[in-house]
C-alpha cells in the first residue's frame, strides 16, 4: 500500500486550500455570533432519522441493558434486599408527603397564596442519545407538532434531566444538565441558598454559590429556583456532594442514560388574577365580607362617599347577608 501511496499525484489546489481554511474560520466566527446557525438543518436531519431511530430503539436498548447488567449479575440478591427496604421506607415518606401536601394546600387557601403555575405535560419517548466531546444530548419523539418549544424542562420519574434546546416538527433535542452549556439557577434547601448549577460534561454538575459566606452540607436537596422565569421553581434536581477539593457538586436524581420515557413541562407563568371572594382570609376567619364596590360610572360615583353617613343604606345590606351565608355554606 505504501507503494500505491508513493505514486499518488500531488495536489495542485494550494490556493483553494487557503480559501477553504478562511471559509472554515469564518464559519466558526459566524457560529459564535449566531449559535443556531445549523439548527434548522439539524432538526430536519433528526426528523428524517426519527422513523429509523424508533425502529432501532428497542434492540439497542436491550443490548444496552444487557451490557449494563453484566456487572450486576453477582449482586442481584443483595440489591433485591436493599430495594425492598428502600421501598418500605419510601412508602412511609409517601404517606407523610400526602399529609403535608394537604396541609400546604389549606395554608395556601388561608393565606391567599398565589397558586402554582399550571403546567401542561407532554409525554415523550427517548429515541436517541449522543455523547460527544462538546455535547451531551438525547433526542425525543415529540416536536413542534406536539407544542414542544425550546427552553422547556424535561423530567423523568425522579427529577429533571435537562431542557429542550432544539425542536423539529416531530423530534426535539435535549441539552442535559451535565452538558458543558447547561446552566440552571437552583435553590439549596433547607436554607434557600441560591446557586448556579453548571454542567461540565461530568456526571455531577458544579455548584457556583451566589454568596461566598454560606456553607453547604452534603446531602442537602437541590431544586430549581425559578429565577428568570424560564423554569418552574421546585423541580427536584439532586443532592449536594463534596468534590473533595473544597467545592460542591450535585449528584443528580435523574439518570439520563437509563431514562426511556420522559415528561416535557410546558411552563408558563399565568397572570395573577384576584382571588374569588370566598377565599379571602377575612371570610375564612368567619368575618363579614365587605360589600362589593359599586360600578364606576360618572353618575353613581359620588353615592358611595355619602352612603355610610346615612342610616338608609342599611337596606342594601340586607341582601348582602344571605350572600355571606351562601359563601360560608360553600
Amino acid at each position, binding site marked *: 500500500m505504501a507503494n500505491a501511496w508513493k505514486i499518488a*499525484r500531488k495536489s495542485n489546489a494550494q490556493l*483553494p*486550500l487557503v480559501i*477553504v*481554511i478562511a471559509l472554515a474560520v469564518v464559519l466558526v466566527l459566524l457560529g459564535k455570533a449566531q449559535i443556531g446557525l445549523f439548527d434548522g438543518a439539524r432538526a430536519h436531519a433528526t426528523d428524517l432519522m426519527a422513523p429509523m431511530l424508533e425502529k432501532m430503539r428497542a434492540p439497542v436498548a436491550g443490548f444496552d441493558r444487557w451490557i449494563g447488567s453484566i456487572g450486576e449479575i453477582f449482586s442481584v440478591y443483595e440489591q433485591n434486599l436493599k430495594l425492598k427496604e428502600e421501598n418500605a421506607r419510601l412508602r412511609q415518606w409517601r404517606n407523610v408527603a400526602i399529609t403535608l401536601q394537604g396541609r400546604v394546600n389549606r395554608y395556601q387557601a388561608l393565606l391567599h397564596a398565589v397558586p402554582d403555575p399550571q403546567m401542561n405535560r407532554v409525554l415523550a419517548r427517548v429515541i436517541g442519545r449522543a455523547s*460527544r*466531546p462538546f455535547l451531551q444530548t438525547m433526542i425525543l419523539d415529540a416536536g413542534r407538532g406536539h407544542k414542544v418549544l425550546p427552553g422547556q424542562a424535561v423530567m423523568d420519574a425522579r427529577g429533571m434531566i435537562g431542557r429542550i434546546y432544539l425542536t423539529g416538527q416531530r423530534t426535539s433535542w435535549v441539552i442535559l444538565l451535565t452538558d458543558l452549556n447547561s446552566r440552571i439557577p437552583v435553590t439549596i434547601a433547607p436554607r434557600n441558598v441560591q446557586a448556579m448549577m453548571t454542567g461540565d460534561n461530568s456526571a455531577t454538575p458544579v455548584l457556583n454559590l451566589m454568596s461566598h459566606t454560606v456553607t453547604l452540607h452534603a446531602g442537602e436537596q437541590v431544586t430549581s429556583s425559578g429565577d428568570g422565569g424560564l423554569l418552574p421553581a421546585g423541580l427536584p434536581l439532586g443532592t449536594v456532594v463534596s468534590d473533595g477539593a473544597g467545592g460542591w457538586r450535585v449528584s443528580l436524581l435523574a439518570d439520563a442514560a437509563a431514562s426511556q420515557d420522559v415528561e416535557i413541562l410546558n411552563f408558563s407563568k399565568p397572570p395573577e388574577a384576584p382571588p374569588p371572594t370566598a377565599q379571602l382570609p377575612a371570610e375564612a376567619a368567619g368575618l363579614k365580607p365587605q360589600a362589593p364596590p359599586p360600578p364606576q360610572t360618572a353618575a353613581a360615583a359620588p353615592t358611595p362617599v355619602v352612603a355610610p353617613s346615612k342610616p338608609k343604606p342599611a337596606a342594601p345590606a340586607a341582601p348582602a347577608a344571605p350572600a355571606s351565608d351562601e359563601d360560608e355554606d360553600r
Partner: protein
Amino acid sequence: MASLERTTVPPRFRYLIATIPALCGLLGAFIANIPISVMGGLVPAPLLALVPVYFWCLVRPDLMTPAVALMIGMAEDVLSGGPPGIWTLAFVLTYALVARQRDSFAGLASFAAVLGFATAAAFACAVAYFSVAGLAFLTPGASLPPVPPILGELAMTVLFYPPGTLAVGWLHHKLVGASRGDV
C-alpha cells in the same frame, strides 16, 4: 497494481466514481453521528469521516479536494450538534497538514500507518478542542471543556482506523483506483 492501471471505465460512470470519496466521508459522518448509545454513553463515537479524508488525501488528492474536506466537516458539524464550524475547521486544517506532509504520511506502512493516522486524528481533535476552548474563553462565565471526552474520541477514532481503512481501501481498489487519471 492492476487497479492503478488505466482501465476502460464507461465515461458515464467516471464522474459518479469521482464522488465516492466525498460520499464515503458523508456516510462516515452520518454513521458516526446516529444518536444511539450502545454502552450507556461511556464510549464516544469515532470520527469515522476522518478516515476517508485522510486516505484519499494521500491516495487521490484530486478527488479529495479541500472543498470536499470542508463539506464533510460541515456534515460532521451539522450531525454532531456541537458548536458550529468546529469540526469543519478541524477537518480542513488536518487536510492541510496531511497534504503538506503527504510524502511522510504516504511512506508509512502497517503499524506506522496507524500511528500516522493517529497523528492526524490527534491534530484534528486538538484543533477542535482549542477552538471550543477559545470560544469558551470569549464567553463570560463559560468553563473550559474537559479533556477526557476528546481523548476518548481520539482513542475510538484510532481504534476504528484499521477496519475503516480496509473498507475505503477496498472501495479504492475496486472502483476509484481503477479510474485513475480518467476523471
